């Protein structure tokens, strides 16, 4: 397995270089000069043309595009992601500030997705055609169809603006530092409730539908019939025999969720003023902040590659029919 992982990682290098190059040129092909946006956003008043030239020079925008590209690739290889035009700070430090917030949100949302989605999917499949199944099916379809940002705004209006039960936005309260440890934990969790619910519930709805169909398919297999014929209890048949096989595609699905973990959820972060990666990336696109756009795109590319690798590894772990040795021989 170790050899397989190394091989896959080596294969990823030219792929990532290709992605980096394509991303760089596509980003620079987009109409709009970053200086226009930078000056417009930053100064909003007359700016001496000489000053504009100085700023261009500082960020290397006065150089021909191929020169900019070579410099960028060189810096990227050294781990230097450059300095943001908009924030005028190193991109690496901006990303480092945002990642913990994004991870809190996305990990909990994935957890909610897995717990709720898989449980509901199993319940729905086991109690096929029952009232529970119908309610779960209808609820899943409704939640899956509702746009996340709309649901977020509605929940904020009900639970924050009108009822005042939950915080409206941000990651903690103003008096956070004055709270006891348990108070701090409760405060952080309180701020996570709405964004995690909105983010997790829509994907849980999809997972529930997927899980239900997978389990129903597995339950109709002959080996399940054989297990039942051997007189095994129904719980054992479902949890030990059917569920493990039904989970294989789900596990792959979660492996591919890695880019989402660090990419964040743009609209949800915007509604809840959550200082995560998604918001950073989208604001950078509007501001033509090339260093941030390129850095976040590269991060996404790396995560997709890693996510695929993890999904393959997870697939082999849960499915004994898949063998890395077989792959190597092939």
């Amino acid at each position, binding site marked *: 397995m170790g050899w397989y992982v190394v091989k896959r990682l080596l294969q990823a290098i030219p792929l990532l270089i290709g992605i980096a190059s394509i991303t760089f040129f596509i980003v620079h092909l*987009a*109409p*709009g000069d*970053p200086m*226009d*946006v930078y000056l417009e956003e*930053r100064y*909003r*008043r*007359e*700016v*001496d043309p*000489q*000053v504009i030239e*100085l*700023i261009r020079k*500082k960020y290397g925008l006065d150089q021909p595009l191929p020169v900019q590209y070579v410099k960028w690739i060189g810096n990227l290889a050294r781990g230097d992601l450059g300095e943001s035009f*908009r*924030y*005028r*700070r*190193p991109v690496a430090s*901006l990303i480092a*500030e945002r990642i913990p917030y994004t991870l809190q949100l996305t990990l909990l949302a994935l957890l909610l997705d897995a717990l709720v989605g898989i449980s509901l999917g199993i319940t729905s499949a086991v109690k*096929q*055609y029952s*009232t529970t*199944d*119908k309610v779960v*099916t*209808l609820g899943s*379809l409704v939640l899956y169809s509702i746009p996340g940002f709309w649901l977020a705004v*509605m929940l*904020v*209006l*009900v639970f*924050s*603006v*009108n*009822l*005042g039960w939950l*915080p*409206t*936005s*941000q*990651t*903690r*309260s*103003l008096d*956070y*530092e004055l709270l006891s440890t348990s108070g701090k934990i409760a405060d952080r969790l309180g701020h996570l409730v709405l964004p995690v619910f909105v983010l997790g519930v829509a994907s849980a709805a999809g997972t529930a539908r997927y899980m239900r169909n997978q389990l*129903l398919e597995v339950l109709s297999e002959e080996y399940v019939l054989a297990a039942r014929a051997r007189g095994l209890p129904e719980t054992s048949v479902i949890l030990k025999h059917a569920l493990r096989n039904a989970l294989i595609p789900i596990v792959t699905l979660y492996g591919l969720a890695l880019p989402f973990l660090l990419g964040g959820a743009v609209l949800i972060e*915007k*509604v809840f*003023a959550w*200082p995560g990666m998604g*918001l950073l990336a989208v604001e950078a696109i*509007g*501001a*033509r902040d090339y260093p941030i756009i390129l850095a976040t795109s590269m991060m996404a590319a790396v995560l997709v590659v890693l996510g695929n690798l993890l999904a393959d590894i997870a697939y082999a772990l849960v499915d004994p029919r898949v063998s890395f040795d077989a792959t190597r021989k092939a």
Partner: protein
Amino acid sequence: MNVQKIASLSPINRRRFAQMCAGSLPLAAAACRRSKDRAYSRGNTLIAAVDPHNNDRPLTPDTEAEFLVYLPLVRMDEHGERQPCLATDWKHSADYLEWTYRLRPGVRWHDGRPVTVDDVKFTHDLHSRPDSPVYQLRTECTVHDESTFTVRGIGWTRWAGADSYMSMVPKHLLKDLDYQKWNEWDFWLRPVGNGPYRYLRYQPGTMVELEANPDYYKGKPKIERVVLKFTGQAGLTELLSGNVDAIRENKQPRAVANDSRFQTYWEPNPGRTWAIIWQNAHPLFRDRDVRRALSLAINRRELVQVLNLPSQLALVDGFYTEPQLRRGEGSEPRYDPAEARRLLDEAGWRQRNRDGIREQDGREFRFTALTLAESSVAQTALYVQDQFRDLGVRMDVQPLDGGVMSNRRNTGKFEAMVYYFPSTDNGLDVCCGERAHLIGYRNPQLTRLIEVARTTADPEVIEDAYREMTDLLRRDQPIAFLFGFGTAHIVHRRVKGLSVPSRADPLRCTDDLGLEEER
């Protein structure tokens, strides 16, 4: 897919549906319930929503909250006159380029050190560096003695007025810091200033809290604490939830229009205006009468109502300085659809096709206007589109993002665009100066007047030049002005002491404000 699976999607029965509806009723009732006013429970603390661009650093120079902590040399009153602040008096040379100030004695930084003329010189030198990240002043500051100093503008950029918007910073704390890392200085997170409020605590990603400065030169402010909450885009819901007292928006949101808890104070921004910029070289817009007709067809007063903007908003047809606008010299663009129709008829756009669009030699009067993909701007464009339709002119609207818009404007690749226009001589340069080719309009007389306005600091000369420029713009209509920019400060009614236009921003005059006590 088998039939059984399809069956599982069949609708639930009526009884179950009724039960579900009944279950959701409490939630619906909660949504309609008027929330309790939580603002009063905070006591003598003002919480303002901010959206710091510089990541959690809302107290860097040139930000909305900087004057809570630092002081400028002077402040402008509602008549546009300088009032003493860190400087007690001043005089200027005949050409207005050289200003000599006297520093207020006894003012101290929040760490107890006295504010000196060295701090003032340090600040001017800092912002006059060619790579200054904040201002590009191009000034020379000369210290005469321990209380007087002279600032002289030497560069292309007119600096006059900087004394009211540039806050002084402490030399003793900043002189040894690496200037290239200005934006990363921790000083901006825990600033030491000389203004009405001093730093109390900072919570990353959440807020900065300030407390009233007992040593403030005007006496300790009435509001004990000010919290700058980093709400980002969630400012409005935070306000409605009662979590903040003040937010700023481009216009008054409908959600607060009829809410008696809040008051909106409109602060005009005379430096910018929304306008339709014509590509004057385009065959449709080459004729001056056609441009005039299109401008006459727009009912700007109604447009302002449609956009829910304040009725006192300045509608001007040219370029004016702030004092000119304060004196009421700005004249409103005319709305005369009958005259517009007559002008188009005379220009040869008489016939109308079956869609009601005017034609000339078989060619429709149809063009595309670019606009920002931002709701209020797009709404403006759609309103204008509707007015032009009545005139028999078809305007298609193409929304674009800000970066693409500025690129299209700066390369002249457009037929028309609904966009902002800087109402300064820099903006004039775009339409009539060296870069006039961008909008296909060139007028040597205007170019000369721009140079006059740009190369002097004498307000009377500038105003005369602006008057002449406005006359020419009114005549030629290379752009159609729509309405001025502004900021709506939406503030909880417990905040007392605000007024329009000069005291509309609660973060600019906090030292003069008070908070109503709980009833």
